[in-house]
């Protein structure tokens, strides 16, 4: 039974894939910013640190607004650096939101990934809190509104004997301690970012913390251009004696302000607590029912030769190498089920086919491809299209193509190269492997390892004896059905030409090498006529 949440996620997922497709076409899959929302957020955090250090040099706790105004008066430096600081933080919120939604919709929030999900939520919270303190630091009308709202929320808690809100009543000028605390938090909280970022990626073998260099610089250049051409306004100074008519609001961080203004503080706590609880409990409500959860990989120790390739290839550090206990020398691979996400990438890495999730190890794949070929008997000008079920393959369910047979895998990274060899040797016209874009693999490294195994000799490599002309590998987005078909037609044409050439060659060989019956060599005695 499909739950409403699954239906909603399915629709969102399809929408995301279409957006991915548009961005793929515009910027190419390598530079598609949607695939790298996490690394972009980290890159923007670095921009915030650099610009923030400059701004702190000029910020004065004793005269917050005046010092920011002075920074803003530095036309050649301060103004655009402050604006870059602001816009980079805004863009970081977009990147974080995109990252979170992608992970949630794609079911990458439960099981072994729960730690990343939870630490990601904490990171988001810290990021928003840093933003809150940053806006208060300026002490303009927006900063004052935020401080008042924050105080109102705190006053609803039975903690303080006097309301914090009295601080902003205007009896006394605001104490320097308030601005010092704010300033301290704005500097100290980024340390929390570093700690939780470490936790966030701690279960990844090779976390990609930054986007490709060109994309990073394009982002920085774009935001700098925006900061120069459209510097962020400095709102009027906070004045406790005036009720502002309008507040220039930063909607990325303070979108909640117009909502909470009209709510009692207890209702805000209730709503905020509810949302937070729902988000933190996502690992529970997004995980599939037990019977549908993929099983972790396991190792058949009889087949394991201790080569360590699965240990190197596992993107989640779920495999470790231990001394053997079965009387043989060397090491044996062990899978930690608590860390394994059942991506199956180890299946493709193991030459002796001794590791992988149940039914997806190399040996299982050979059995499956054998029955696949025997059922369909592809002709020599027909193609087998190997697709990723999590990517474009998920959109082609049941679809039939003229002259091509669909062979879907849970993840292309599972594909054992022996399967490709098996197909080619069985006489198919070609094997086209449609993998996800490299930076958008659900299992992180499936496309990279598959390409290396097919064409660059990575274990378990496709043997040299396999004609590479009959094997094509491509990265394609989940919604790019059109692009896939273009590539498929092209590859099919090549396969047909090859098949035709083979047929012609056969005829020529027969003609040229035809040996008259009376001149047949006596092979037993090694005598040529």
């Amino acid at each position, binding site marked *: 039974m499909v739950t409403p949440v699954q239906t909603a996620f399915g629709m969102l997922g399809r929408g995301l894939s279409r957006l991915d497709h548009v961005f793929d076409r515009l910027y190419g899959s390598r530079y598609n910013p949607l695939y790298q929302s996490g690394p972009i957020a980290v890159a923007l955090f670095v921009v915030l640190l650099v610009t923030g250090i400059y701004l702190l040099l000029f910020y004065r706790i004793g005269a917050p607004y005046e010092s920011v105004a002075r920074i803003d008066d530095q036309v050649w430096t301060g103004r655009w650096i402050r604006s870059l600081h602001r816009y980079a933080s805004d863009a970081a919120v977009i990147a974080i939101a995109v990252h979170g939604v992608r992970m949630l919709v794609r079911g990458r929030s439960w099981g072994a990934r729960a730690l990343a999900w939870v630490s990601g939520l904490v990171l988001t919270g810290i990021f928003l809190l840093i933003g809150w303190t940053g806006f208060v630091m300026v002490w303009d009308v927006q900063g004052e509104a935020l401080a008042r709202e924050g105080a109102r929320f705190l006053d609803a808690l039975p903690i303080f004997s006097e309301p914090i809100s009295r601080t902003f009543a205007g009896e006394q000028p605001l104490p320097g301690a308030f601005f010092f605390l704010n300033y301290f938090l704005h500097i100290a909280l980024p340390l929390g970012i570093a700690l939780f970022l470490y936790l966030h990626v701690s279960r990844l073998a090779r976390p990609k913390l930054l986007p490709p260099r060109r994309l990073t610089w394009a982002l920085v250049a774009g935001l700098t251009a925006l900061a120069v051409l459209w510097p962020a306004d400095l709102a009027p100074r906070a004045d406790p004696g005036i009720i502002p008519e309008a*507040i220039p609001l930063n909607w990325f961080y303070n979108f909640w302000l117009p909502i909470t203004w009209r709510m009692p503080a207890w209702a805000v706590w209730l709503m905020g607590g509810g949302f937070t609880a729902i988000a933190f409990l996502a690992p529970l409500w997004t995980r599939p029912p037990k019977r549908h959860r993929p099983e972790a990989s396991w190792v058949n120790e009889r087949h394991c030769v201790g080569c360590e390739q699965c240990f190197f290839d596992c993107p989640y550090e779920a495999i470790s190498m231990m001394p053997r206990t079965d009387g043989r020398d060397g090491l044996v691979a062990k899978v930690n089920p608590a860390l394994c996400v059942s991506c199956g990438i180890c299946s493709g890495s193991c030459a002796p086919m001794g590791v992988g999730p149940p039914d997806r190890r190399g040996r299982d794949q050979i059995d499956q491809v054998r029955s696949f070929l025997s059922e369909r008997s592809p002709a020599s000008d027909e193609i087998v299209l190997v697709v990723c079920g999590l990517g474009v393959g998920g959109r082609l369910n049941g679809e039939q193509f003229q002259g091509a047979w669909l062979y879907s895998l849970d993840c292309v990274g599972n594909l054992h190269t022996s399967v490709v060899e098996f197909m080619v040797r069985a006489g198919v016209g070609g094997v086209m492997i449609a993998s996800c874009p490299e930076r958008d693999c659900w299992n992180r490294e499936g496309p990279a390892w598959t390409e290396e195994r097919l064409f660059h000799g990575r274990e378990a490599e496709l043997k040299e004896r396999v004609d590479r002309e009959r094997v094509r590998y491509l990265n394609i987005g989940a919604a790019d059905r059109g692009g896939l078909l273009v590539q498929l037609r092209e590859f099919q044409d090549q396969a047909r030409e090859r098949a035709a050439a083979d047929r012609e060659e056969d005829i020529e060989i027969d003609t040229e090498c035809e040996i008259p019956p009376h001149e047949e060599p006596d092979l037993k005695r090694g005598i040529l006529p």
Partner: protein
Amino acid sequence: MMELIRWVAGIAVLLAVATIVGALSQFPVAAEDSEDAILRLSWRVRSQEVGECPTRGRDDLDQLPVHMRNPDACVGPLPAYDLQLRLNGELHLEQVVEGGGARGDRPLYVLEDIRLPPDTYRVEVTFERRPDPGDDEGIDMGRALSVDTEASMGSRTVTLVTRAGDTGNLELRRPR
């Protein structure tokens, strides 16, 4: 040609995203629709202590941690205070203010925002100790705080009623 279209579209999307970021970064929101003024009552008072204040002996003090060895230890609740606000002679707000904190033994405070149409008002505020039924006649009720003055309250302005200094009587002034 397709490559050129791709480039142009790519830059157009980038510009659109940048414009959205720039706009949403500082898009004004109406903070307050009404033109009302605010009369803010905000002050803090250390209440009179009405409980028993026995003087502790040496033995009692020795049993206490060093930092708590105060010979004059008052026990009992603090008295409540009556707050009244009259605008142009009419009672606008009447409240009983009790000591702060979970045990009611912390200083009293007042924090009220009263929205008023912009105008000139005669503002009378009194804040005095509320007599307890068990109080003896002629008991010292302490000093009452009060103010009685005219205030011109402009549109979207805040006028503060607070104490002059930490110990003074109530006064009306602009917040700072």
